[in-house]
């Protein structure tokens, strides 16, 4: 599904490079690596927000840099580390923004759009938050909402930048299980950056390991091996 072809990413200086990597549909990948190694940069680059220094990212054979904003919105959704909340913006309206690529000029939502919002909210167990304002719920709840908005967007690729950072242990476990289920059921390719090695190992999620300026895929590594590779 996603191919990273001899990709070099970074700003003025190169941070990370890959050889030829292939990320399959129907799978979840955990992007791990130490602070500042360039995980967020990779995610931003994959979402088309940041230009790569060299190489190419393709999704189903199409180069990401050739997609227009509308095509990107229909292909990739991104969950940022932090969603600050917006005054007087209700959770349900925030989730419904995920339908924006599919609504008309005035952004009117149909019955199906609202059904989508409801079913995602029930998957994430945030139904009780729907009528609350996004700036009046907790950081963890907001993070679940941000994930929900990406689900509502219904894209084949979902990128999540440390989605578990503010979540409690139970919600972390739930979220990972849900991501796995979703990727398998709807044949999505999901990449999340995380520091939760144990949780990923529990769910036997393959690692995208960023270390020493390079990203490699490791399907089965023990915790000790990963830590050693990172340091």
């Amino acid at each position, binding site marked *: 599904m996603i191919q990273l072809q001899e990709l070099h990413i970074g700003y003025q200086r190169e941070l990370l490079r890959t050889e030829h990597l292939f990320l399959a549909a129907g799978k979840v990948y955990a992007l791990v690596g130490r602070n500042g190694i360039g995980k967020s940069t990779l995610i931003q680059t994959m979402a088309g927000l940041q230009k790569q220094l060299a190489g190419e990212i393709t999704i189903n054979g199409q180069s990401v840099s050739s997609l227009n904003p509308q095509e990107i919105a229909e292909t990739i959704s991104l969950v940022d580390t932090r969603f600050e909340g*917006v005054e007087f913006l209700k959770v349900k309206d*925030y989730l419904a923004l995920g339908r924006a690529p599919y609504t008309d000029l005035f952004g009117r939502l149909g019955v199906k759009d609202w059904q989508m919002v409801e079913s995602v909210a029930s998957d994430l167990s945030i139904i009780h938050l729907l009528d609350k304002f996004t700036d009046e719920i907790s950081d963890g709840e907001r993070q679940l909402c941000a994930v929900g908005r990406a689900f509502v967007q219904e894209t084949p690729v979902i990128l999540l930048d440390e989605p578990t950072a503010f979540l409690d242990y139970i919600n972390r476990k739930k979220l990972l299980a849900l991501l796995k289920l979703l990727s398998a059921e709807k044949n999505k390719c999901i990449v999340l950056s995380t520091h939760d090695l144990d949780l990923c190992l529990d769910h036997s999620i393959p690692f995208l390991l960023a270390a020493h300026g390079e990203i490699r895929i490791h399907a089965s590594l023990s915790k000790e091996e990963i830590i050693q590779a990172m340091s």
Partner: protein
Amino acid sequence: MKDWSLKWMMFCLLCFLPIAMYLHLMAGQIEISFASFFDSFWNYDAKNTAHVLVREFRIPRLAMALFAGAGLSLSGMLMQTLFKNPLAGPYVLGINSGASLLIALSLMTSIRFFQSNFGLIGTALIGAFTAGLLMMAVAQRLKSQISLLLVGLMFGSFTSAIVSILESFAGAESLKSYTMWSMGSLQQVEFGQLGFISLIFLVGIAASFLLVKPLNMLVIGEKSAALLGLPIKSIRMFVLMLTALFAGLITAFCGPIAFVGIAIPNLTRILFQTSNHRYLIIGNCFIGAIFLLLTDAFIQVLEDQFSIPLNAITSIIGAPFVVFLLMRKLR
């Protein structure tokens, strides 16, 4: 807040607007019967003082209160959403200053182009738009909401310094006309100009409804909005142009009117408890218009004893409200 209470609130505003308009029309010093209002439209008699008064003074002033109130509030709302900053507005961000600077140039220098009616409006629009672009460029480099306001403030001081220099060179006559303009007044438009002005404002308000979806997306930040398929750069330009249109026109016709553009959008948001721009646009038009109608009616009532500049009243009400907002949001 439920949807029905939003609709109820809009219904109340809809009822209150004609009342405010009526109060404004009746607030003048000379009493005029209701009948002569209609007659001045349908059976206009140029020899009848009441008719002339209505047509040349009351109606233009009423229309400008409506348009300036709605337009300034809308442009404030647009700025606040675009900059994701509740304290943005055409006045604090220097959009007005840009227009004022060019108007000062046109009133106090002898450059021929500026003297024409078209020149005055055109230059005000150019000034407003340029200031908007400048602020946009600065905003890209700033992280903090406060710094942007400080830059706007500095820009305002800078332009007013240039204006003072112009004033020191200006002749008595042009100095007077500039000073009169800078106090802000809704009484400077003639009946004949109203058609043209209403047309522009109605088009502007209609155009802002085209922005409902983009504005609702911008609420969660430019980056997230872009990833939802919003063409950020063109939307930014569209929003800026619309803001400059409202703020520039109003500044050209009515002088600088402070604080309406920052206070009313916040008041609307707090009253409506929503971030949906479909309602916010309507709310801002109504609340802004009602606010300026009542303010100006108050000025008219006192007019035989003192003539208070409009700008002074809006600042006296607006400035404490903005301080209240600061304490509420930023602490």
